């Protein structure tokens, strides 16, 4: 049995302890804002916050999530107006959009730690998040804009 918090709500899980948090969120809780992309921690589309740290939910087993607090895109901001989300809209970052919740979660975690990151810090922090449409220039610009607004 694993007890955890998801977006502030207490949850109990008694299935396979080796199941990645990703599939618990998507298949058991139907919280599909956290996406599946590679399953091996290489693309970042499944990024969530675990006790405030950005993690790849495909690499976190349910046994490791026990006792911890998970924040997903659905719970990033009560009104869905986190500065990163707002900047994403203002700059028109997405094309297909599939990777963007992971990008946003990663960017939000970066800004929580470093409210005014340098360009190099942005690039380094975001290098684990792939975007096949190639929205990188706008991702960078949106993080810059969100940092200014933060």
């Amino acid at each position: 049995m694993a007890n955890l918090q998801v977006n502030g709500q207490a949850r109990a899980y008694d299935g396979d302890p080796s199941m990645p948090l990703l599939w618990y969120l998507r298949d058991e809780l139907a919280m599909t804002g956290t996406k599946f992309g590679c399953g091996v921690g290489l693309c970042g589309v499944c990024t969530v916050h675990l006790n405030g740290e950005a993690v790849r939910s495909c690499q976190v087993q349910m046994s490791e999530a026990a006792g911890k607090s998970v924040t997903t895109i659905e719970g990033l901001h009560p009104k869905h107006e986190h500065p990163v989300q707002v900047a994403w809209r203002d700059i028109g970052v997405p094309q297909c959009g599939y990777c963007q919740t992971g990008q946003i979660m990663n960017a939000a975690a970066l800004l929580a730690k470093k409210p005014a990151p340098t360009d190099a810090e942005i690039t380094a922090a975001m290098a684990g998040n792939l975007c096949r449409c190639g929205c990188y220039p706008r991702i960078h610009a949106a993080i810059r804009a969100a940092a200014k607004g933060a």
Partner: protein
Amino acid sequence: MTELKPHSKITIANVSRRGLLKGVAATGSLVLAAQLPGAKGAFAAYPTGAQSMPNGVVTNPKVFVSIGGDGIVSIVAARAEMGTGAARTALPMIVAEELDADWARVRVVQSPGDEKTYGNQDTDGSRSVRHFIQPMRQCGAAARKMLEQAAAKKWGVPEGEVEAQLHEVVHKPTGRKLGYGELAADAAALPVPADDQIKLKDASAFRYIGKGTVRITDIVDITIGKATYGQDVVLPGMKFAVIARPPVVGGKVASLDATAAMKVPGVEKIVRLEPKPAPAKFAPLGGVAVIAKNTWAALKGREALKITWDDGPNKVYDSKAYKAELEASIRKPGKVERNEGDVDQALAAAAKVITAEYYAPHIAHATMEPPAATARMQGGKWEVWAPVQSPGGARDDVAAAVGVKPEELTLHTTLLGGGFGRKSKCDFAIEAALLSKEMGGAPVKVVWTREDDIQHGFYHTVTAERFEAGLDAANKVIAWRHRSAAPSFMANFVPDPKHPGDIELGMGWVDSPFNVPNIRMESGEAQSHVRVGWFRSVNNVAHAWSIQSFIAELAAQLGRDPKDFLLEMIGPPRIIDVAKSVTTPWWDYGEPAQTFPVDTGRLRRVAELAAEKAEWGKQLPKGQGLGIAAHRSFVSYIATVVHVEVSDKGAISIPRVDTAIDCGFCVHPERVRSQLEGAAVMGLTLAKYGEISFKNGAVEQSNFNDYQLVRIDEAPKETRVYIVDNGIEVPASGVGEPGVPPFAPALCNAIFAATGKRIRRLPIGDQLA
């Protein structure tokens, strides 16, 4: 354990599509224009290939527009949204423009797959805006007219006294107003006005078109996790499936032991799927499906399967050996595809002949969303949710696979987490339906993992290209022979085509615009051992890369500036009559050549614009260089200049990209810019890393560790986009795809300028180390 055979009957819609398109090319645009019924022709200032597509065009506002009593205007998006913004933003925006609706009060409603109702839905070929700007304007204008008629009737005044103005109709003499919501019911009861009653807006009155101010429709949902892609569909009682597919195309299960898999908690059923013999169109590959209560259980069950495979004849496929086969194919005379003058004689008489060969491998689409689909059947009615580029075509194919009529199946188009051509093929949707059928109609979601996606795709073809250029004593190019060999995607539809089809020939090859008196293109034979599909910009990728690289090679050998030499090769502004010298009717992207000819003036202009903006000729430090390439594809003209820096160790960085596009009239400049920014990244990925290779018939790569994509830290630091400013009278052309082809050659030409090293084999990989 059950045997499950896909339905045996497949229709070859794409082949008949090609037949139709050929017909257009052969009969010419004047005939096409004359064939347009009045209803379509009245506002079609110019003919396009839209009416020649299966199920053509529908403009009826009663199909696309509905208005609630609250004034909310719902506009149907009938095509698939995969990230260009065309389907769910640009086209509804065009309707809203002519309707003079307030965009804030517009809702976009996704249609199901149904081409009889909505017209062609095949979202492919950079066609959406090109084909639908005119019909959607007409649709919106007709709806506006109906609102005006309803208001005039209500007030008992002549129609000439009323005018729609931003979501309300005004009686001009009195200033009385009625909101669209107040008029909706009356307007809906009116007949659709005849064409001669409809008046399009003057372009000077546009609020949205051409402005680039409308945000993409799904921007909020995307940023809060509410946007629903194929992977995200959730139904009550849904089961989750993954499939162990044969490693070699055409392979079959020789033996299966599912005992351990069935013991995995959560696994509910194991199903064998038989492959279809080639040509199999978009049929699934077959294999063994594991159906479980969640994806994780299905994955663990799949790992526990013990399968031996009978690989079949494609086991021989080996990329190293096949490269040699393709090279042999281009080193001998091939099938003549275009011929002008006498190349043999000119090459024999040339003062100098320069020859080079290029090789570009298979690549995989690797959409960030791996394929997925969900299906269920209740009371004989099927429903399928899938991220497919061709919702109407997928509906037909899935219905046939489960043995029902298309009318008995609803195909819900989800958002596509990237398409790039992969999701033109609906194999994954067929899989979901077959497995749901096996579960008595219970909802089943088929999830493809990244490994499934990389190893069981429809791959971009593999290409070998050979050039021979003959120079006269004054170093003018007098002969140009270009041979190309690449397995054709037509092998999905017909047995062993050996040579490219008209679409492949037309993708930046036989339509080459060069000012050389003796030209011949010859295709070499190539047999397909895998599922070759189309990848964003298709054969243009290898053709543009090799052609534009070879032109820069010639420039270097002649000591000429590459940009000046490229412009000389393009020659003076003129229209190239491709049709006169090709052996297969010229495809021209399915368009009437009268509307979309090969115009070298437009190609020159983008090359000059990109060069000027990039400050072509500027002095750069050692290890840095500029490269240029210009290419017409999807009837648009694009030139790209890449500035590269190559380190001592051969690492590439790209400080800047300058890209100029002439896409005719530009409906949404902001989205065009985003497409070209993205194309630079995708172009860099395919140049730097893109390679799918086969050994013993199976793909050697598996995930993003060995099939790398460019990341943010290696992407171009800056991509500047310049859009040629055209009026609405210049036909809108393609945008989604054409940004990709010029990137790789511009990069390779920049690398040559920086290092003197010529790349003749993609990907670049460690060739600079």
